[in-house]
């Protein structure tokens, strides 16, 4: 695209828009926004070279709060929209962000297929183990015995998904977990994720004080993984399963082939039209 000119902002806040977030006071999502802006500032990416794609949910509102290009699409389809964008525009840095409901419930199919497809983009699940936007229902990461949803008053009774394990099995080439209580740590992870070539998945533990007030306690439970990232699937799998889901850091990082559709083969429209001649 010939219009791409550099106009590099220098500080994180240059990546913020003027729109005031609708988030509740204390929502973890504020820290995800700040981590993203920090990561972009660190990488000195021109605003116009970045696109942030999201679905629907409190967390998915994030796109409008940045000053990069963005698409606030429909519920659960952000990864698909992003794949189309990246397919058409390799030159852009494509980020995708949204909630645990958006990404793992309604969007579950696109999640596993995006992992498998391994296109060069970064996906952040802002995980609060609840549907915030619709006022507090259980998501696929909610514990089976969480009783505060009127929709499932006896708890879901279902074992929660482990997003990192799902990503690993489905074929993601970069997997990390961060925490909004440590926005600088999250920003560092995001920098690494964006720099990674391939599909990078970051689970950001992002408390919902409104519907999951008990998550305010996460700051006492979160710790860093003892080991650094591995490129061995079995090791990564073991680590994820041995963990309680509260350890942070980059877990897995490897070099799977990066997918980008299309290959510039020789041809032109006239030649194609000639095929129609008898």
């Amino acid at each position, binding site marked *: 695209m010939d219009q791409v000119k550099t106009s590099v902002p220098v500080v994180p806040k240059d990546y913020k828009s003027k729109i005031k977030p609708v988030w509740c006071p204390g929502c973890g999502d504020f820290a995800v926004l700040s981590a993203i802006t920090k990561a972009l500032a660190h990488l000195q990416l021109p605003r*116009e070279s970045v696109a942030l794609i999201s679905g629907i949910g409190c967390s998915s509102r994030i796109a409008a709060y940045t000053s990069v290009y963005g698409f606030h699409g429909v519920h659960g389809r952000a990864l698909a929209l992003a794949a189309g964008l990246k397919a058409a525009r390799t030159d852009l840095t494509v980020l995708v962000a949204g909630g645990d409901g958006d990404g793992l419930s309604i969007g579950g199919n696109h999640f596993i297929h995006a992992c498998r497809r391994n296109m060069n983009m970064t996906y952040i699940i802002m995980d609060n183990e609840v549907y915030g936007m619709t006022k507090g229902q259980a998501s696929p990461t909610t514990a089976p015995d969480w009783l505060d949803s009127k929709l499932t008053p006896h708890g879901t009774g279902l074992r929660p998904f482990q997003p990192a394990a799902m990503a690993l099995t489905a074929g993601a080439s970069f997997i990390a977990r961060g925490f909004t209580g440590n926005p600088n740590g999250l920003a560092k992870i995001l920098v690494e994720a964006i720099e990674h070539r391939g599909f990078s998945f970051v689970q950001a533990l992002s408390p919902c004080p409104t519907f999951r007030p008990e998550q305010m306690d996460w700051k006492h439970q979160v710790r860093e993984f003892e080991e650094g990232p591995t490129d061995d699937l079995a090791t990564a799998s073991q680590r994820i399963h041995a963990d309680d889901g509260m350890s942070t850091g980059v877990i897995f990082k490897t070099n799977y082939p990066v997918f980008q559709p299309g290959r510039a083969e020789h041809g032109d429209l006239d030649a194609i039209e000639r095929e129609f001649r008898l």
Partner: protein
Amino acid sequence: MDAADNFDISLAVTGSGGAGAITAGELLLSVAGRNGCFGMMRRSFGPQIRGGEAAALLRISSQPVACMNDSFDLLLALDWRNAERFADEITLRPDSIIIADPAAGAVPQPVLDMGGQIIAVPLGDLARDIAAGRPNMVALGLLTRWLGFGPDEAGTLITELFESRDAEIASGSRLAFEQGFAQPLASSARQEASTEQPGAPRNSDLPPLNGERWHFHGNEGCGLGALRGGIRFVAAYPITPASDLLEWLSPRLDQLNGSLLQAEDELASINMVLGASFGGVPAMTATSGPGMALMLEGMGLAVASETPAVVINVMRGGPSTGIPTKSEQTDLNMALHGLHGDAPHMVIAPLDHADCIQATEWAVRLSEALQTLTIVLSDQLLAQSTVLIPKPEYRLPDIPPRCTSGPDPDYERYALTDSGVSPMAIPGTPMSTYVADGLEHTSFAKPSAAAADHAQQLDKRARKIASFEYGDLWADSRGTGDTVILTWGSTTAAAREAVRRLETAGHPVRVIALRLLLPARPERLAEALEGARRVLIVEQSHGRQFEHYLRAYYEIAPETRTLARPGPLPITPGEIVESLTGWE
């Protein structure tokens, strides 16, 4: 062959799995083309996935044809296994010819019941002694001669077809063809089928006979139209009968520096299309009824976020999984009204094979110019039948490309312009960053639930489509008279042929076929209907979807009737003629 020699022959070749009925039919159509004729071929298959019974249904004519005829002049059965499956589709007359190998057993009752004169030809025996020679090639020879064509073109075509694969098959096929060609039938098509035949087309309003012949099916036509319109990204999930459109596009997009992405499902396809289009690349998907049903939410996002997107729906029999391999015009309702909320968009339907190219190109250009969703309604009949027609000519008006924005510090994505079209910044453009949104928004793309913003944005999205000048392509009108046939899509060709027949019989009739279904153009149709005393609505739908659409958006002549019938059998010119002749 003399081009002035008017003839119009319909013939069917059937056979069980592997008998090669389709190959024989395809070759015969090409032979006709090389001999300066025009024609059309439909394929029909039994329910078995592969290797089941198949029928090649052909029409070969000295004049361009765009639909199948009412009945067949000749049926050649390579064998009779499950042949009754095709009894519905192959109507014979008492004077039709049935060619059958006596070794294949008795002619089945449903076929006998239709009448027709049986000629026994030992197709199997004639092929038996030829290495790699097969009865279908014998049949090809027989039919080539019957149609009055020489043997040379067929010989060349057989060689072209088989040689790259297997030299023995090539020579065996040639020899079998020659065996067949050596068999004179009692009568020849040239004598049987004269211009007096009701189905024979006339020179009037048809393109000239000479010049370049094009040979394609409707799916290829839509594909070419899409590429001509500028589509360079396609995301899709396979579905009958749209898969071959996608398979045709995939390598050709590669050639044009574009790409096709096979999606995990239709929900992904449509959203991928939006992503690519948001990125500045004209993008499209193709699907059929059930797939489009899954895309509707994403299509609504195209409308609300003002992202250009084209969806081709190659209609098949519904509802639900329905009859996937047969045609029907019953996704009209969904295309017009399937989106939730007030979601103005465009719906365009090609009227015949040639129009698949033009209408699809138009759809793409409109979608880009008006930054919204355009649905193209093709159907299985157009999509999977092959025509041999004069090189199509187009009369596409000039349509501006997508209106983009340069760098602008005060960029207003959804600005309230007069036309309703707002300049769109493409990612990469400095300063003009914005976030496209399916939530209602201000002109600056900020989410808003305010009544004024909602009203203004609804107005602009409606205005840009309603106020655009679509020119003359909105419909196609032919013929004269105060009786008018109103139709759309693939039934147009049958309606036009009915009109020609009625004209020949001294009953002038008009046919108006709507190409632009949304936005409705009631003033234009009122003009076009000037002087109409009565209107026959023709559509392939049990639920009269087109009729209800017409009533909802237009004023039609006081006296109207409807010929509405579901698939799977195509509506024929004869049915339409009958509806009109019975109406007094």
